[in-house]
């Protein structure tokens, strides 16, 4: 008998140790790689180096630091983050019903449909614990269990761009958008408080490079040019307060927040991974309210929102008021009212022109969402009304013909989702105040645990108008688009994973680059393989065809031509011993167009990351060579960066790129990051154009960040 007791004790100790090991050995590498790939593809999609991914990735970082309890309803966040499919979400719930709560994270591998790659991606942001009690929270507990985080960051490009030149008032007046009024440093300060993901608040302030900070960015005689727009201090301030699970109040948000419901056709503020997410995650999961903690200056709500829930029914009401950057002109009509000719989304306020456009128009949004959700069925109804402080009157170009103009816009939509064990059907229909419709329907099927495929059909009327829509689409405007998507995600053998999709789309109206209805396709294939526990590689093929105006056309006869961009990439990551992680990447891109020369490019890089155990520092180094014919065959490649900062530069021309990133944990509470990167071109003596022009063949960027956690 005694022997049996000892045996059981040994067993329980072993289990305990296994749990410890599982937690300790979890590294976020797999998750990081997944996010890197997603963001690189997103950068390709948006085709814009300046796109701010912080807003999107911030949520992942947040959960890495504040993991989700596998035994709580919080696992829905994994679905919202596109880390698991709707079927995997169902099988976690089934597993818990059958076997009870998770005792340790490693148990995930026993859940149906959780192959090794999904487990390694999910593990870093979950834990297995007791479902926390929903008792009332005392001040003492808030003070004791709450977590504080304070982050300060500085960054700068060392080479002086032309926009920073000191010039006379008359030169400034002659070209007001050519010179920056502020210094080349960028500063950011943010603070956040979190109590068990239930109470959060924080603030953020930021000054971008080139934005003025002092009391007088211009001489007295020129100050009137800025009107009353300029305020001393940081350019952007944000504040958020969020609380969840207080009786009937499911969520409440004050200050800056994001809203997303259903498939995002009617209302999805902020960014979404759009079409680049994998397989079944094309089916979106609206996450209701979410506090907005990032410094992104466009696409968010500012005001208040509340969600009440009673059993299967929930209701949300929201109000937002804030000023948007816009170019305001006086209309030439008789009453001479002020109208808005364009909205600006960059968030930069560096030049006289940019500052004059700052906060130029007031936007109010209010509305409500009601939803019914039981285990297998979700139905929601959303309505919102946008009120602009001045009429929006875009340039009278044919491609703007159906775009929203005016000052008031109402949208309403109905979304649904039916989830069964092997398939799910989802969709949304939305209508704008001009009685135009947008529709989206999808089906995702998982015949066995390791395969699922997804079909999606979308049809957005060219008259459909919505400023807050962010549903699956090819173009950034959710209007005048029809398309079919078919995606496959499969794990055909252990350690192998295949991801493939095709997407056909057709635009039935003009866009700013194509002066005729046009069409295109997008093919993608990615095969990944885990060579061992310490090494993994993938091969990625991509082909995308779209149309544009022929560059040889004159202004009287535009005709569209199609162009295709193909790329192939091989990537391998491997760990050597316990200290070194190495990675190699090789990419080839080819651009073919009917009206221009073919163009091709290469990118090769070696990454080395050194992380000695029991030492408080990590060093990451990259050496890369790139060589492309021109901008057409550019490539977007992710670079490691300081916490809460993301860079995905576009590489074109001929040259090399190096960076070194260091992370040093000084005390338990303080972590320092520093990064220096340098790009050297061999084919040019100057970089960039306009105000960003640098008269050098190299560009050096420096970042320093301090993260203080308590």
């Amino acid at each position: 008998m005694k022997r049996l007791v000892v045996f059981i004790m040994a067993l329980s100790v072993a289990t305990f140790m296994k749990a410890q090991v599982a937690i300790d050995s979890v590294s976020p590498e797999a998750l990081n790689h997944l996010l890197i790939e997603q963001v690189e593809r997103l950068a390709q999609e948006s085709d814009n180096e300046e796109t701010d991914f912080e807003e999107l990735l911030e949520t992942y970082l947040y959960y890495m630091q504040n993991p989700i309890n596998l035994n709580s309803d919080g696992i829905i966040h994994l679905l919202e983050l596109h880390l698991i499919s709707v079927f995997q979400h169902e099988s976690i719930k089934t597993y818990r019903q059958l076997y009870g709560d998770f005792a340790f994270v490693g148990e995930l591998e026993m859940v149906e449909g959780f192959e090794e790659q999904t487990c390694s991606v999910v593990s870093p942001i979950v834990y297995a614990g007791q479902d926390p009690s929903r008792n009332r929270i005392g001040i003492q507990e808030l003070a004791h269990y709450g977590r504080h985080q304070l982050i300060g960051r500085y960054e700068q490009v060392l080479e002086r761009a032309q926009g920073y030149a000191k010039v006379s008032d008359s030169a400034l007046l002659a070209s007001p958008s050519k010179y920056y009024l502020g210094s080349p440093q960028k500063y950011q300060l943010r603070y956040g408080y979190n109590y068990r993901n239930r109470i959060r608040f924080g603030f953020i302030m930021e000054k971008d490079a080139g934005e003025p900070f002092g009391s007088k960015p211009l001489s007295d005689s020129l100050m009137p040019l800025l009107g009353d727009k300029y305020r001393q201090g940081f350019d952007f301030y944000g504040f958020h307060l969020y609380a969840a699970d207080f009786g009937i109040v499911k969520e409440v948000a004050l200050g800056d927040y994001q809203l997303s419901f259903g498939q995002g056709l009617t209302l999805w503020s902020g960014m979404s991974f759009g079409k680049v997410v994998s397989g079944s995650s094309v089916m979106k999961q609206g996450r209701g309210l979410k506090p907005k903690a990032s410094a992104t200056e466009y696409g968010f709500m500012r005001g208040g929102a509340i969600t009440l829930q009673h059993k299967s029914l929930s209701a949300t009401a929201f109000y937002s008021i804030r000023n948007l950057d816009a170019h305001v002109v006086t209309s030439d009509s008789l009453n001479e009212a002020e109208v808005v000719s364009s909205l600006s989304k960059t968030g930069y306020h560096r030049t006289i022109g940019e500052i004059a456009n700052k906060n130029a128009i007031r936007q109010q949004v209010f509305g409500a969402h009601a939803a019914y959700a039981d285990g297998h069925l979700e139905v929601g109804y959303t309505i919102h009304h946008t009120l602009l402080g001045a009429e929006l009157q875009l340039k009278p170009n044919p491609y703007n013909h159906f775009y929203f103009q005016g000052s008031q816009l109402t949208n309403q939509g109905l979304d649904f989702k039916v989830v069964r064990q092997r398939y799910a059907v989802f969709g949304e229909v939305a209508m704008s105040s001009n009685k135009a419709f947008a529709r989206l329907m999808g089906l995702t099927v998982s015949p066995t645990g390791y395969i699922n495929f997804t079909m999606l059909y979308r049809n957005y009327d060219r008259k459909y108008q919505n400023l807050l829509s962010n549903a699956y689409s090819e173009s950034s405007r959710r209007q005048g688009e029809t398309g079919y998507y078919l995606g496959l995600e499969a794990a055909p053998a252990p350690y192998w994973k295949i991801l493939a999709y095709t997407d056909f789309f057709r635009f039935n109206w003009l866009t700013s680059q194509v002066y005729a209805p046009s069409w295109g396709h997008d093919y993608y294939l990615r095969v990944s393989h885990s060579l061992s526990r310490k090494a993994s590689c993938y091969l990625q093929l991509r082909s995308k065809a779209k149309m544009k105006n022929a560059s040889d056309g004159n202004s009287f006869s535009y005709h569209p031509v199609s162009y295709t961009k193909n790329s192939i990439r091989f990537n391998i990551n491997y760990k050597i011993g316990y200290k070194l992680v190495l990675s190699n990447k090789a990419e080839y891109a080819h651009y073919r167009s009917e009206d221009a020369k073919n163009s091709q490019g290469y990118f090769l890089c070696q990454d080395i990351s050194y992380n000695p155990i029991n030492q408080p520092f990590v060093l990451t180094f990259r050496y890369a060579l790139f060589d492309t014919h021109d901008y057409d065959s550019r490539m977007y490649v992710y670079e490691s960066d300081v916490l809460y900062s993301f860079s995905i530069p576009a590489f074109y021309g001929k040259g090399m790129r190096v960076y070194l990133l260091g992370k040093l944990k000084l005390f338990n509470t303080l972590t320092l990051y520093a990064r220096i990167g340098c790009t050297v071109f061999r084919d040019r003596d100057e970089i960039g154009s306009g105000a960003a022009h640098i008269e050098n063949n190299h560009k050096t960027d420096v970042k320093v960040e301090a993260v203080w956690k308590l």
Partner: protein
Amino acid sequence: MQKATAFKSAGLAVPTNFGAIGLSFNQFGYENYNENKFGLAYAKVFGPYIQIGLQLDYLLLNTGFDYGSQSAVTFELGLQSRLTEKLTLGAYVFNPAHFKLNTFNDEPIPVVMRFGLAYRFTKTFVGECEIEKNTDYEGVSLRGGLEYEATKHFYIRAGAQTNPGIFTFGVGYRISVVQIDVSAQMHQVLGQSLQIGMTFNFDRK
């Protein structure tokens, strides 16, 4: 065969207690134009999985007809890691800091970057592939090679390269401490050439 494109090379490696030290000399060209590289190398093995090598180079370019000679100092780095029993990865970079030949117009020395992998299918059969970027040339080169130990100490090899297209075929045979390698190369522009190599390995007696 063209004499003007002759390539000669000699090297010596000595293992010591704190790593291996090497000396090497390469020459390309003929009397009126030749590129010489003198190398001093150091290599070290870290654990069973990783080997790192560093070489300091002295480059000397001799041009005939009173054009004189130019020289420069640079370095190269190599890294080899054994991932599994069968798979070995390698990475290499020459002149990563982008040094230039010290002439009046700053003539650049190319940066060369490579990485490749070797896969040992069986004990006697190895396949290799590699990608190389040389900043002096357009595009990249891809290489593939196979080696088969047909009978004991007798090796048969074949390989191909793109950009420029090259095919190679070779054999190698080892007698005691000496290994003799002979190969033929078909270059799409320069035509055919022959290479002979001798390696003395006193460690392997």
